[in-house]
């Protein structure tokens, strides 16, 4: 019989253990009969160090009983996951009965063999111009939203979830939503949005609120992705996974690391944060010979809007681009406040153009980018040197930038623009500029679309 000998932070150390497995699930029974779950972080001789997901508050060394389950933390999966709401640890919290699992899967998953992957190059239409036109999302991509406190990332994510579709339709679509440490209002917002549109039928929700145990958050994205993998690769569905807020997840990880007295990396986050995040983000993708896919949109709030903070920084090093929300646009009351300049979809070039979206799309995207960048430069110049310093062509760029923000970036939360709409709108705006300024566009497209 094992003996609890130390409790510190979220950790419990037990001794006189025999046969504990590294990384296995442990159940800790309290005197009042409550059961908490934990994970073995380290084993040494007869000792096991356990991370308690629900926290160690209220545990005492004398009366608790630990039981080693002999397996990892698992999620029971079946078709019936759809439409259900679970806790951050994967326990039902919607007052409906437990699902009868078709199988139980370790939430850590295993790495996809890179040889078995299929390159993501199918265009997903989100109906949002700044994404579809400039920073295209593809099926199987991992594309985070870098946000900040008070910015409308939740509305944007819900809009993407509501509107996302692939040209020509195709397999069943599902949404997996993993919430880590978000507020009750934010969670309610998502649930309401999913209900309103009927999307809840095809959604699975894993919810850990700000008031729920922090350490549980370490399991939440993994449980969500385990459900997603089952639906994508067993049921051949196209799954969109939204994880919010990854910053809270990372903080829980830091808490455990600090309790273990590990050598801290930058800003106190553990040195293995990159690897840990990669084991989450790399679960997105497509697999050869399977119809389904996992498209992952993690949301994170950048502390101080600082892109070089370890969480956005390491995320950017793993994901295939980033959508960046901008406070200045938000202040101008522009929704969605996506700044196209620092945003990037690395998989765009292989997913757009002839046969995928429209022949002029790659050229138009580059031109919009260049022209808007130039317009912003002019705007800054004007601030320093005054409007009088602007040439005629400068003024046109300025007008372009203003209109671009007002018509292209700005769109209604309920507005679902087709890619054709987005491209046609682009041409409308490009007409503000003289034809010979459009250096990134092939003459044949100028003839066809500028003149039209």
């Amino acid at each position: 019989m094992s003996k609890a000998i130390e409790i510190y932070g979220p950790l419990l150390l037990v001794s006189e253990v025999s046969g504990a497995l590294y990384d296995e699930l442990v159940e800790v029974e309290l005197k009042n009969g409550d059961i908490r779950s934990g994970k073995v972080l380290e084993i040494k001789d007869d000792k096991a160090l356990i991370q308690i997901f629900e926290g160690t508050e209220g545990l005492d060394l004398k009366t608790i009983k630990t039981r080693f389950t002999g397996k990892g933390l698992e999620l029971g999966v079946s078709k019936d996951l759809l439409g259900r709401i679970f806790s951050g640890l994967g326990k039902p919290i919607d007052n409906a009965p437990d699902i009868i699992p078709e199988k139980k899967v370790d939430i850590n998953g295993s790495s996809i063999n890179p040889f078995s992957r299929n390159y993501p190059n199918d265009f997903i239409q989100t109906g949002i111009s700044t994404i579809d036109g400039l920073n295209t999302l593809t099926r199987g991509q991992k594309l985070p939203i870098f946000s900040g406190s008070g910015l409308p990332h939740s509305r944007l994510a819900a809009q993407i979830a509501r509107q996302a579709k692939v040209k020509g339709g195709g397999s069943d679509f599902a949404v997996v939503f993993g919430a880590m440490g978000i507020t009750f209002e934010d969670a309610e917002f998502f649930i309401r949005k999913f209900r309103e549109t009927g999307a809840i039928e095809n959604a699975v929700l894993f919810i850990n609120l700000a008031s729920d145990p922090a350490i549980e958050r370490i399991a939440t994205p993994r449980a969500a992705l385990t459900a997603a993998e089952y639906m994508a690769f067993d049921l051949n569905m196209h799954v969109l996974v939204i994880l919010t807020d990854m910053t809270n997840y990372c903080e829980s990880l830091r808490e455990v690391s600090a309790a273990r007295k590990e050598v801290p990396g930058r800003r106190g986050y553990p040195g293995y944060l990159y690897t840990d995040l990669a084991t989450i983000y790399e679960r997105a993708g497509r697999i050869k010979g399977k119809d389904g896919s996992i498209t992952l949109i993690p949301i994170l709030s950048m502390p101080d809007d600082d892109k070089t903070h370890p969480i956005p920084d390491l995320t950017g090093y793993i994901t295939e681009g980033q959508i960046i929300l901008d406070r200045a646009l938000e202040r101008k009351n522009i929704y969605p406040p996506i700044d196209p300049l620092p945003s990037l979809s690395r998989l765009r070039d292989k997913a757009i153009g002839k046969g995928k979206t429209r022949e002029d799309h790659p050229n138009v995207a580059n031109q919009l980018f260049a022209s808007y960048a130039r317009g912003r430069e002019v705007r800054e110049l004007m601030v320093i040197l005054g409007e009088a310093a602007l040439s005629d062509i400068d003024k046109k760029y300025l007008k372009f930038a203003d209109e671009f923000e007002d018509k292209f970036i700005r769109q209604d939360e309920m507005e679902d623009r087709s890619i054709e709409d987005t491209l046609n709108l682009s041409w409308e705006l490009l007409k503000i500029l003289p034809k010979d300024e459009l250096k990134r566009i092939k003459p044949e497209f100028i003839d066809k679309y500028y003149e039209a």
Partner: protein
Amino acid sequence: MIKKVAGPLVIANIPDCKKGDLVKVGKLRLVGEVIEIRGDLASIQVYEETSGLKVGDPVQNTGMPLSVELGPGLLSTMFDGIQRPLVELEKASGVFIARGVEVPSLNRTKKWTFKPVKNKGDEVSVGDIIGEVEETSLIVHKIMIPHGISGKIEEIKSGSFTIEETIAKISGQEITMLQKWPVRKSRSLKQKESVSIPLTTGQRIIDTMFPLAKGGSACVPGPFGAGKTVIQHQLAKWADADIIVFVGCGERGNEMTDVLQEFPELKDPRTGKPLLERTILIANTSNMPIAAREASVYTGAAIAEYFRDMGYSVALMADSTSRWAEALREMSGRLEEMPGEEGYPAYLSSRLADFYERSGYGKCLGTPEREGSLTIIGSVSPPGGDFSEPVVQNTLRVTKVFWGLDYALAHKRHFPAINWLQSYSLYVENLSKYFKENIGEDFPAIREEALRLLAKEAELEEIVRLVGMESLSQKEQLILFVCKIIREDFLYQSAFDPIDQFSSLKKQYNILSLIMILHKKSLEILDFGVEVKDIQKIDTISRISKLKLTKEEEIPQEAESIRQDMKNKMENLIGRANNE
């Protein structure tokens, strides 16, 4: 028997083990390596996920060091960090990688046609080439006498063999086409020589401005999204090396898939053969076990050196070495070693130096006499894009070329985002003879002039920002104009345009010469009272802009025509200025 498990570190008591021994851990027989010994306790770095191990589980010592298998079958293959072929892993365990799967690195059943080049009775020793196998339509695999063997050939065969069948007998020893080599041990050249030939990459800013030499080493640091991987892929595609070893170290799975799907379609510009046929891929993606990340760069280096020993020029790309350094840091932390700067172990700098020292050019061991080279290009992913961190700094101390990627340039979508003010190549001197003899007598001179103008441009821009364009003299305005052309029409290069993605040295020379002639002639005519705004109107300039998108074979003629045209137009301008 296991005593402790903490992530990828397992401590076990293994009687009589040596540092570096390959061990099999637990009932699943996970692959591990002894990295430290204290008393009878060995610290083992485990190359697979360790979940499910427990105290008391067995550890079996193979007594052999972690090794790579060398022989026909390496090319066009993608391996994991410890050289397990990923296609075989898929066959064995499906699309998700299972643990404890044992598959041989090289195919044991495939027959290769072996053609001997030595005869019975010949005396041979280490490194001597005794026969050849046409491994792919692009590469002839030379079968060399392994280390530790020498003597008289008693028998040598010809025909079709697997890599384990005997192809020759030398002093009583049977020789096969399969050799093993300890991963961490470097294979030596007979004699290292100084580098003198460029490794051309088809990338203008690299070949012309900051060239790399065959046998040299380069460091490509940059923040996320700045273009490290695109550059490494461009090099893997277009560098004029015979063999490419690409190590995807702790990066994205899709990037490896991209290479696998794209390379068979791409043709080598020199031979017209599929590029995959000269390529070996090592993939330890960011979600694969961290310890294998550390091994992956060595696996790549050992394979690269083996091909170098055949007399080939080999280029090894490691993307990203930061992930390898992080793996070192993680193991060091678990071993409770004293952390150095930013938690990295004190031996980080010596490990990096040892690795880059494996690059080089020189005479290979054995006969016939031949020269081989190994060029190493490592990308570095510094946190927050800050180049002052330990991995960048320690790498710069041992590499001779620095292509610093710049967030500001990438943000403006100026690609490759190599900062021309910051970057350098210490091979410029060594290579200038080659460039003069093979490309153009004035090639080094125009390069220098272009860089000088670009440096001047940066100064002038600072002035413009403060007081506006008007304050600049005509000559200064000309510099700004010419530099814009250098940046947009020479330095900028799209990796995705079918023509622009590769520029031969001749093409690079042609474009840059024209731009420099434009500058020189313009300077001359400014003295005649011509103004920069008149020069800007010369329509020939737009023809220079189009050159990068012009096919190689049309370049010489078009360049000559532009040269003439430009001359005429300039003379016209002088004429007009004189009349006014």
